[in-house]
């Protein structure tokens, strides 16, 4: 028996903005996502404060990179031995950056941040070299590659984001130096609030773009 189905009409109406519509098509997703601005991203948590080093070894407050603009922040380590782990996270950020490059409004209001949680290895020099591999695709919004001076500095940041980085349980030599983690990326609004968290289950660039546009519309209104 097919149950009675009632479609609730007009719950997901789209704003009329041609530029936005381009970012709402859901072909790659297999479903039609709700239009940017038609939904609310909750204020989940304040992005943590901390001390970081930029690519030029300058000491900066983390909030310098998590406020004032819409920010997509990814936590990685550059020596990640899994070629399809952290490197792909950075690849997806690059993909987003390329897409945003054609969206003038969003490009002006967005920044990307890649923050290492392996300060023992990821010095500012290493991060600068790592960045070179990802910044060759044109202009796009600014993309910062940050690290910290020490584990002592990164641990409270990880705690603040709720990003777990585990010890490989087997302790085998092949896992030496590995820093297993369930990858998360954080969408942060201009006021420093985490508004969405993306995990391996749900890192769909189109949805991330829509969320960024939702925050942009929120700013405009």
């Amino acid at each position, binding site marked *: 028996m097919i149950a009675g189905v009632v479609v609730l009409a007009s719950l997901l109406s789209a704003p009329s903005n041609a530029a936005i519509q381009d970012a709402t098509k859901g072909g790659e997703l297999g479903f039609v996502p709700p239009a940017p601005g038609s939904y609310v991203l909750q204020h989940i948590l304040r992005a943590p404060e901390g001390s970081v080093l930029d690519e030029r070894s300058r000491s900066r407050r983390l909030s310098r990179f998590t406020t004032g603009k819409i920010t997509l922040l990814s936590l990685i380590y550059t020596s990640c031995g899994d070629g399809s782990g952290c490197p792909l996270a950075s690849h997806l950020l690059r993909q987003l950056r390329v897409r945003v490059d054609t969206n003038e409004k969003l490009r002006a209001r967005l920044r990307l941040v890649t923050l290492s949680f392996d300060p023992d290895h990821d010095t500012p020099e290493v991060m600068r070299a790592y960045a070179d591999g990802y910044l060759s695709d044109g202009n796009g919004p600014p993309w910062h590659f940050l690290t910290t001076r020490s584990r002592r500095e990164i641990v409270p940041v990880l705690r603040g984001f709720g990003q777990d980085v585990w010890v490989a*349980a087997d302790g085998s030599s092949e896992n030496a130096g590995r820093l297993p983690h369930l990858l998360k990326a954080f969408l942060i609004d201009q006021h420093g609030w985490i508004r969405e968290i993306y995990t391996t289950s749900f890192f769909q660039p189109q949805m991330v773009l829509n969320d960024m546009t939702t925050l942009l519309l929120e700013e405009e209104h």
Partner: protein
Amino acid sequence: MLRASSRSLRLAAAWLASFALIASPWAAADETCNSPYIGNLIKGQEDYVYVWTLGIKGLGDGSDKLVTIDANPASKTYGKVIHKVSVGHRGEAHHMGLTDDRRSLWAAGLDDSRIYVFDIAKDPAKPRLVKTIADLPAKTGYVGPHTFYALPGRVLVQGLSNSKDGGGVTGIALYNNQGKFLASYPMPTEGGGDGYGYDIAINPHKNVFLTSSFAGKTNYMMNFGKLVKDPEAMKHFGNTMVLWDLKAMKPTRIFNVPGAPLEIRWSLNSADNWAVTATALTSKLWLVKQDAKGDWQAQSVADIGDPSKIPLPVDISIRADGKGLWVNTFMDGKTRYFDLSNPEKPVQTYEKVTGRQVNMISQSWDGERVYVSSSLLANWDKAGDDGEQFVRAFRWDGKELAPAFEVDFLKEKLGRAHHMKFGSNALKTAFEGAPGRPSLASR
């Protein structure tokens, strides 16, 4: 629109696959029935079974408590209660849920609407009560927190009732992992919606989640014998499932599913596009699936036992491969197995009486171990000798449930055994590190 390059898709697939070592990207558990956002799935031998237990007046301290049972056959205390945390209060302990980081276990009382947050990361053998959230009724008007379902950094809390009239009209609350209330979402009461709630189950790949519907506080706190003889009260059970847009947190479709649809389980195969539920009062399995046009439909696909005898299916547990489903029926105490190879035509292939009354059922990721608990609700459990309270563990070889161990919750002066979740010592190593291998995650 720009499309992902074939290279990026290959990378994406490999990226997702890589995390199977840590946590399946499309994973859920009993170990198989949790939120897909939960990391750290226990795919090997579970070390512990946590049992959220209703207190019984005059038995032990009489309070609700979280009980830890050693479930590792290699342990000297296998099958024994090794720890318990009393909350010092009796509030109709019912269900639990893990946060996405698997650091915390949220458990609640249907009567007092308190939500208890237990830390299970520091020492998985000895959960610690670290927070009590008591603002659900004040913030939302909802009472009877039932299902706890993880989102990244957040927990969805499905209410069963409301503080105004104790009826079934309710909603969903959203908290962050720190226990701060964020938002509420009422169950739809228009367009065929009855406003009732029960379970939540998310399919991120489709940007949807499903909810089901049970009954309000006036019903679930009523004596069961009195309830079934009250025609007016029996009218007040949920008859709907709701399909929601996950990103928008808005209902998009309402399905007519008569007879109190309870637990919802999505097939864990990422290529699948269906979920199942069981209706308590009409004793049927229902399938929610996309049709050829991509539209979601719900249909009744099998009877559970003889519906005319009201066996009262109360919990289901899907296999990790989506090919089988355990169903517990409370009244006849049976644990039934359905072959789900064709989800449109489930076939019962096995049954066993596992207790005089049985409620929750949880299975390990490999499906080789099955745990059954006894209590439904304090005022619905059977009386006298039929009112036994236990957790029974079984081994499943695909043909027979063989008893492994049993804990008598009355003899142990614990209470009524209800919801179960698994714990693992591997999580302690992961979170806290080991000698010479300090963890960045240590908190």
